């Protein structure tokens, strides 16, 4: 059975996000033929926008779907996802400022660039680049599985080749505006996404315990 309320909300939000992704080209306008403009938005994002962008990357389908599923199946040990995110920030805090200033000084755009500059080995840089690509794929796959679950929850049938169609459409649109707008697209969408996530979490944390009778149960 199609859940019409959820479906309409979903389509409206998805339409808005699609428009935003393509419109992001004009945000802090720059020459998108330059790689660092496309890939790093020219380094012109301030602290607040970067906060939204990173938040949208870290707290995503993994946090919403994978971790709760893990905790539901494996128990409290799955909660390690929380200490893991606590511990990541001090590590990044110590390492990244130095990395940033070195990369900015030398015009490095990716980790592979940095490795080639630091160790003067293009084979190592290639290995790093390929590892990065391959390592990102399970994460993307996870996002797609999460999206499929969401589509299924709205009542749209997800079996067979036809069932994959909504997912393919969503992914093609996503790829299209990321291709045209570069980093500006995910950054602008991350702002919307983070607001939605905050709203969802706050409501869930308040409403669900009320329905179930308090945290202690």
């Amino acid at each position, binding site marked *: 059975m199609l859940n019409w309320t959820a479906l309409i909300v979903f389509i409206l939000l998805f339409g808005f996000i699609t428009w935003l992704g393509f419109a992001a080209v004009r945000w802090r306008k720059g020459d998108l033929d330059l790689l660092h403009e496309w890939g790093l938005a020219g380094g012109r994002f301030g602290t607040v926008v970067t906060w939204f962008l990173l938040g949208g990357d870290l707290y995503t389908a993994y946090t919403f779907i994978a971790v709760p599923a893990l905790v539901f199946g494996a128990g409290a040990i799955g909660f390690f996802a929380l200490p893991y*995110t606590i511990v990541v*920030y001090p590590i990044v805090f110590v390492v990244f400022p130095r990395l940033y*200033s070195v990369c900015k000084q030398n015009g490095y755009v990716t980790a592979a660039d940095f490795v080639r500059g630091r160790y003067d080995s293009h084979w190592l840089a290639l290995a790093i680049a390929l590892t990065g690509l391959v390592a990102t794929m399970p994460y993307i796959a996870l996002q797609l599985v999460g999206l499929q679950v969401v589509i299924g929850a709205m009542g749209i049938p997800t079996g067979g080749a036809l069932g994959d169609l909504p997912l393919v459409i969503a992914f093609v649109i996503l790829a299209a505006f990321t291709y045209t707008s570069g980093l500006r697209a995910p950054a602008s969408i991350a702002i919307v996404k983070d607001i939605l996530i905050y709203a969802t979490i706050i409501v869930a944390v308040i409403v669900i315990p009320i329905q179930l009778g308090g945290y202690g*149960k």
Partner: protein
Amino acid sequence: MANGFTPGDPGHKRKAHWAWYLLLLPSFVAVLWVPFFNSIEPTWAGVPFFYWYQFLWVFISAALTLVVYYATK
């Protein structure tokens, strides 16, 4: 090339004492030493210690990182 301002490079004046970075260590110990907080009591609003302790350390470690950031700026 850089525009002249590179925070964190060794030539920067008034380099902060390295000991400030030790303030980042409690976050690791507090949150990774599981036997310490692996209990239900003391509960808070019905939530077991195991959970609210870890949530608390999200905020404490953010505060500690903030202190280190300003101290080593």
